[in-house]
């Protein structure tokens, strides 16, 4: 399928394809009601309640007033519908804002300002610098004479560096004025979501050049939501619009997420439903048998001899209605209510406010807080999530001298400043390389301040650092660079740029000094790409030690080198370079080969160390959550060595010398397969040892693994607690989430960029960091937080509490409805199995909706352990992860409790209100009071911490029960008239109630006490510890060890050579294509640095406290 786009053809453009209106809405005004109702009724519970409500309309079988079901049902539906409508309205508003943004578009040959939504396919759109691209465009022209422009694609792939885009060759050199009138046709694929491919052709109509077909690639496009940078203007023809853009296509519809707790509740509901059906069938049969044998003799019942055809159904249906309260209609309302309160608590939390920007945490999805407490896997993006995405030049080593230490950056190191002012040649040369060897574009604003635009953050950091060391890169004028060193203006002409590729791992520039005419080769690159090519005689040991030391600090290292070139040598090489560059086959390889010829005999200048600063508290967060039993996977688009370095510095692998990295890679299927199997084998072996094994996989190997060896990879995923996946695409991220989900793990994806959106939507919980890369991720996410470290609190505090509270609330809801239902069932045995309801409609409704729902709502304030204890013992999260508080067996406990309590209430009531006192209304109220008292005490017993609100809710509710019933008893028209007054005056009533309460609660209390004291769970132990002796530290905590570690190992003293344990070495270093697979310069797997970091920050924290 192809799409033909006629450029700038106003007549054709109108109807063929959709306009640029973006719509994320789910409903329209017209389809809202039917669609919403349909969605709501697709849930089993709602269908059930509807069925019950309909059955109740049949007065022959209904035990109670139909209003008791219809009222709550309508209320529930109205609430959900309103919420949906409100959400959709907000989506509409944000769409509207995007749609009504104004852009310049050529209409009938004239530039006009129109709303973004009116752009049609084929229109020519003009953009200015820093404009957001409104739809997918094919570039036609830019301000740059070479037809280049820069875009920031963070919203699409999350990469923050600038990318170059170039206009198609056919459009090269078209005059600015003529761009308005350009005509032509573009043949392109139908809309798809592949953001890396765009295989199209363009043919311009005369008079524009010839009729040749010009091929287009993704390099010629500007995709929706990118930003135009560093380019004064650009224009392009729209090819995909509205929801058909590449971004729009890959957006995907976020499916409503169901928490594990919800799933469990649904399962339990199903079980209860089955139980209910069994009860109904049994009682229905019993009722019919009793009717035919006994009731026929009961003349006063006057059963007709011949009933209608449905007679056999009447009694079962009556029981169905009687038992329908087994599945509490209130549970949905209660859960929705408490869930939105959990979300509010997250919004309100003052400890999760990013004080720098003032961003609060926000729970967009209010329904899934419990899942936070059950997270088993965290899949995290790297850049911007773990790191601040701010590269900072930290240290350097020039000719064996180390500048910068842990107190001071190199930038403020006095020694270095001295060296500069004294004019040490090495240092100055070093700075020159920093300033020149790059592709950075300096931009001088009107005020004179210089800002740098760079493709790579590393280069920007170097240039900035050089600038602050008085080597200021001032201007780039064509090929001439101007550098201001201490007021001295130096000019260099760039002759060639030997670009960076991931194979060469270095980049170089050839410059000619305008002053002396000398030609230099300036290079920077990874150590293994530079150091081996040092000139003969130069000692590189210092440098490799420096690299190693810096890498241990988690810094990214670059080696800087230079060489002076002979004019002849350069001339000769230059020819070869040009030739290689124009070659058509294997160009990249040829170019690399030619570059290699020049890039040798380096005079090594030194090593620069750059920090992509970790966000505050990242290592602590990771180690805390890891202790909580959460597995971490890092998914990054970055390259392997960087990813591993960051992983090292942020405790990605446990801080003990037992880490091991396994690499999966290979170019071909076979290689990947072999590699994968080997890793799997190692993993199986080491799995029994207390060793932290992580595997590293890159995008390509991942692609192959997922496609062909899914099973093996899945096994690996299950075995491995840690994984680092580098060079992965957004869709691969989503696939990995999918993979883990398919193994029944609860996954949390956290990211900050547009490239994380799909993974965030895919995961059970998506967390977005509202960071530098815009709000894309935060908007798509279920939770948005300001900093990675808030994740600890989000999971351990909010997630855990939410889980605990919901676990209690849901089981309690079943308990209380089962309780009253069992009583009804027991009563049916003494009422001729005829389906009489012991309780009247008002009581039943109020019981479910009011008496028992209010106290339990206060449990949203319940805290089993204090936040501090949980933070100290994150392992306690295991109880939530494993679902220890809500599962069939705990539910069986509650089921048993309700059965026991029902027996107590029923037996005591009918025995103490026997004979002359067995009046229906009175017995009913006694039983109901018994239930209310019991449930109040059950809530009290299960509450771990009583705030004033809980006291109010529990005991106030008890009082309210009496007040309400006394009021109802004062109304003559009700069946309950005077009943409560009579009861309250009877000593018998109170003695009965006390008896019920004690008989019901005594055994429960005894059992709980016994388990609490002699079969205590970890939670119990911590509760006891917390409340009796203040907070305790784990014996096995790492903090004490760390302190001692820090004593004998200060970060500065790392320079001693490492006696490496073979364990640290990657196992698979013998794999064929790998030269050196470990982290860049063979950074060993040790964690001394991260440990000290951790401990020092720990000390800092403890001081603050």
């Amino acid at each position: 399928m192809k799409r033909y786009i006629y450029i700038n053809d106003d007549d054709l453009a109108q109807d063929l394809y959709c306009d640029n209106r973006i719509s994320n809405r789910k409903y329209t005004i017209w389809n809202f009601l039917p669609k919403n109702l349909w969605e709501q009724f697709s849930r089993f519970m709602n269908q059930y309640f509807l069925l019950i409500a309909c059955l109740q309309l049949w007065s022959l079988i209904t035990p109670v007033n139909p209003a008791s079901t219809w009222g709550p049902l309508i209320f529930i539906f109205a609430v959900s519908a309103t919420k949906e409508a409100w959400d959709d309205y907000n989506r509409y508003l944000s769409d509207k804002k995007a749609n009504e943004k104004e852009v310049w578009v050529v209409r009938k040959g004239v530039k006009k300002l129109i709303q973004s939504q009116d752009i049609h396919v084929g229109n020519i759109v003009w953009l200015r610098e820093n404009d957001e691209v409104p739809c997918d465009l094919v570039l036609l022209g830019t301000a740059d004479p070479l037809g280049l422009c820069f875009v920031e694609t963070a919203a699409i792939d999350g990469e923050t560096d600038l990318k170059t885009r170039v206009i198609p060759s056919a459009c090269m050199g078209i005059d600015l004025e003529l761009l308005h009138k350009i005509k032509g046709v573009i043949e392109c694929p139908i809309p798809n979501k592949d953001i890396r491919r765009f295989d199209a052709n363009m043919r311009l109509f005369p008079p524009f050049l010839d009729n040749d077909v010009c091929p287009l690639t993704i390099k010629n496009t500007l995709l929706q939501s990118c930003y135009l940078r560093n380019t004064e203007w650009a224009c392009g023809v729209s090819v995909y619009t509205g929801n058909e853009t590449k971004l729009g296509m890959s957006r995907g519809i976020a499916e409503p997420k169901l928490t594990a707790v919800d799933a469990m509740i649904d399962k339990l509901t199903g079980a209860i439903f089955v139980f209910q059906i069994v009860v109904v069938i049994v009682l229905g049969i019993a009722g019919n048998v009793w009717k035919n044998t006994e009731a026929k003799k009961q003349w006063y019942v006057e059963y007709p001899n011949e009933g209608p055809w449905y007679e056999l159904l009447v009694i079962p249906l009556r029981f169905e209605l009687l038992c329908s309260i087994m599945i509490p209609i209130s549970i949905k309302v209660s859960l929705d209510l408490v869930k939105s309160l959990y979300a509010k608590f997250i919004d309100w939390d003052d400890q999760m406010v990013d004080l720098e920007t003032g961003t609060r945490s926000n729970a967009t999805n209010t329904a899934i807080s419990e899942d936070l407490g059950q997270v088993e896997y965290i899949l995290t993006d790297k850049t911007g999530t773990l790191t601040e995405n701010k590269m900072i030049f930290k240290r350097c080593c020039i000719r064996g001298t180390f500048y910068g230490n842990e107190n001071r950056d190199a930038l403020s190191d006095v020694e270095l400043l001295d060296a500069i002012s004294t004019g040490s040649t090495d240092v100055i040369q070093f700075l020159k390389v920093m300033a020149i060897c790059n592709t950075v574009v300096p931009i001088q604003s009107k005020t004179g301040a210089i800002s740098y635009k760079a493709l790579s953050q590393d280069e920007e950091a170097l240039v900035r650092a050089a600038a602050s060391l008085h080597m200021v890169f001032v201007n780039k004028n064509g090929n001439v660079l101007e550098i201001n060193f201490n007021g001295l203006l130096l000019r260099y002409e760039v002759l060639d740029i030997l670009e960076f590729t991931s194979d060469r791992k270095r980049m170089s520039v050839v410059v000619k000094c305008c002053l002396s005419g000398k030609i230099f080769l300036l290079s920077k690159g990874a150590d293994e790409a530079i150091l081996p090519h040092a000139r003969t005689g130069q000692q590189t040991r210092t440098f490799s030690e420096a690299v190693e030391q810096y890498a241990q600090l988690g810094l990214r290292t670059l080696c800087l080198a230079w060489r002076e070139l002979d004019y002849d040598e350069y001339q000769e090489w230059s020819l070869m370079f040009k030739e290689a560059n124009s070659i058509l086959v294997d160009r990249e390889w040829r170019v690399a080969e030619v570059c290699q010829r020049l890039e040798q005999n380096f005079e090594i200048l030194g090593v620069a160390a750059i920090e992509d600063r970790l966000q505050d508290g990242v290592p602590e967060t990771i180690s805390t959550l890891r202790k909580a039993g959460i597995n971490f996977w890092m998914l990054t688009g970055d390259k392997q060595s960087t990813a591993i370095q960051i992983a090292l510095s942020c405790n990605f692998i446990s801080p003990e010398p037992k880490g091991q990295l396994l690499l999966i890679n290979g170019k071909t299927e076979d290689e990947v397969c072999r590699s994968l199997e080997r890793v799997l084998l190692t993993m199986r072996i080491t799995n029994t040892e207390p060793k932290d094994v992580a595997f590293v996989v890159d995008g390509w190997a991942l692609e192959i693994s997922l496609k062909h060896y899914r099973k093996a990879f899945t096994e690996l995923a299950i075995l491995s607690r840690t994984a680092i996946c580098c060079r992965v695409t957004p869709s691969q991220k989503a696939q990995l989430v999918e993979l883990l989900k398919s193994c029944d793990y609860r996954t949390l994806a956290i990211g900050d960029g547009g490239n994380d959106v799909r993974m965030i939507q895919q995961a059970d919980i998506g967390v977005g960091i509202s960071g530098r890369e815009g709000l894309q991720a935060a908007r798509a996410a279920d939770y948005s937080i300001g900093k990675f470290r808030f994740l600890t609190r989000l999971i351990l505090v909010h997630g855990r509490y939410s889980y605990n509270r919901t676990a209690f609330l849901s089981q309690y809801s079943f308990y209380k409805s089962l309780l009253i239902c069992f009583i009804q069932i027991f009563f049916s045995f003494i009422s001729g199995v005829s389906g009489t309801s012991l309780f009247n409609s008002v009581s039943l409704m109020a019981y479910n909706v009011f008496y028992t729902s209010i106290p339990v709502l206060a449990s949203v304030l319940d805290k089993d352990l204090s936040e501090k204890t949980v933070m100290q013992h994150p392992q306690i999260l295991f109880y939530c992860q494993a679902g220890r508080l809500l599962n069939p067996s705990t539910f069986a406990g509650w089921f048993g409790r309700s059965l026991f309590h029902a027996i107590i209430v029923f037996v005591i009531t009918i025995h103490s209100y026997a004979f002359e006192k067995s009046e229906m209304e009175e017995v009913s109220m006694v039983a109901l009071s018994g239930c209310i008292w019991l449930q109040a005490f059950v809530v009290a017993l299960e509450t771990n911490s009583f705030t004033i609100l809980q006291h109010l809710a529990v005991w106030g509710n008890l009082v309210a029960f009496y007040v309400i019933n006394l009021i109802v008893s004062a109304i003559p028209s009700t069946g309950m008239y005077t009943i409560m007054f009579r009861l309250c005056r009877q000593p018998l009533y109170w003695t009965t109630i006390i008896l019920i309460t004690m008989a019901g609660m005594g055994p429960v209390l005894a059992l709980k006490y016994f388990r609490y004291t002699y079969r205590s769970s970890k939670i119990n132990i911590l509760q006891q510890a917390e409340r009796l002796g203040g907070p305790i530290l784990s014996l096995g905590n790492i903090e004490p060890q760390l302190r001692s570690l820090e004593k004998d190992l200060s970060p500065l003293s790392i320079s001693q050579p490492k006696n490496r344990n073979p364990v640290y070495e990657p196992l698979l270093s013998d794999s064929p294509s790998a030269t050196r697979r470990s982290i860049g310069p063979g950074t060993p797997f040790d964690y001394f640095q991260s440990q000290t970091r951790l401990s020092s920050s720990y000390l800092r924290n403890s001081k603050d406290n």
Partner: protein
Amino acid sequence: MNSDTPSSSAGGTGSADTTGARRNSKRPKYSRFTQQELPACKPILTPKWVISAFLLVSVVFIPIGVVSLFASQDVVEIVDRYDSDCIPAGARNNKVGFIQGSQVKTCNRTLRVPKRMKQPIYVYYQLDNFYQNHRRYVKSRSDQQLRSPRNENDTSACKPEENANGMSIVPCGLVAWSLFNDTYNFTHNNQQLAINKRDISWKSDRDRKFGKEVYPKNFQNGTLIGGAHLLDPSKPLSEQEDLIVWMRTAALPTFRKLYGKIETDLQAGDVIDVTLENNYNTYSFDGKKKLVLSTTSWLGGKNDFLGIAYLTVGGLCFFLAMVFIIIYLVKPRQLGDPSYLSWNRNPGGH
């Protein structure tokens, strides 16, 4: 987590607001509620607390049990089952036929007073195996009709006894129709023993539920005998106390309903002759009929259940308290001992 953070940040907000920085305008004021930091008391189940609670319960419950048992013992109760004895020997094979026939059904019973009975002595009739709580039965009544003559035809709920010969039955429904109609006469020392049949029903029922202007009417005379056709058509429903009592349906299939009160004391050994009209058919469903004379205590009639239950629960609590004390002494266990935390023993494992 630094505990100072919230308060300091809140302070920051306040000052920011005054300086006009509205960035954080959405930020709610710090409150203990929003931070989930309301002061809370966190009780835990310490042995001391639990054991003393159980002891306390047993200390309170056992006396109450004893007192209620005494109260129950104080009540003097005479129960006389007469349903089978009041069938003439010849009719024993066909009790239902007898009760539905038109013979004279008078029956004489003799009751002996075992202990002194102080007035008021309540006279109950007790029915066994009679399902007043059957769904068909319990719903078959019209409270509207009972309340006011205007609602005379409001009989839809009363099926199948809603009308006779096209006229609405008042009071309609199975409950009213099946009114108990045995009558008792007591003689003591050949003297008529007065039975006060006033105020045997709930006052609230007389005042509010059963209308003063509603008169019974339109009763059919079917083959099956309920008692309602015996109602005096000249008395308003509010004065038909037997009906009012009857219409307070019982929740259990065994129940007693008040027939009247004897307002003289009876001495131990007194003999009371009862002349009763055995009209009511319990024979079709093997129901029992009993005549009960009973005094009352603060807890009501004779019922040992409460006393025994209190003693049981109290005893049980005492037993549990003892068990817990013994366990506590034999196997003391330090609460909150961190060495019980498994991750302290084998790190990383769960």
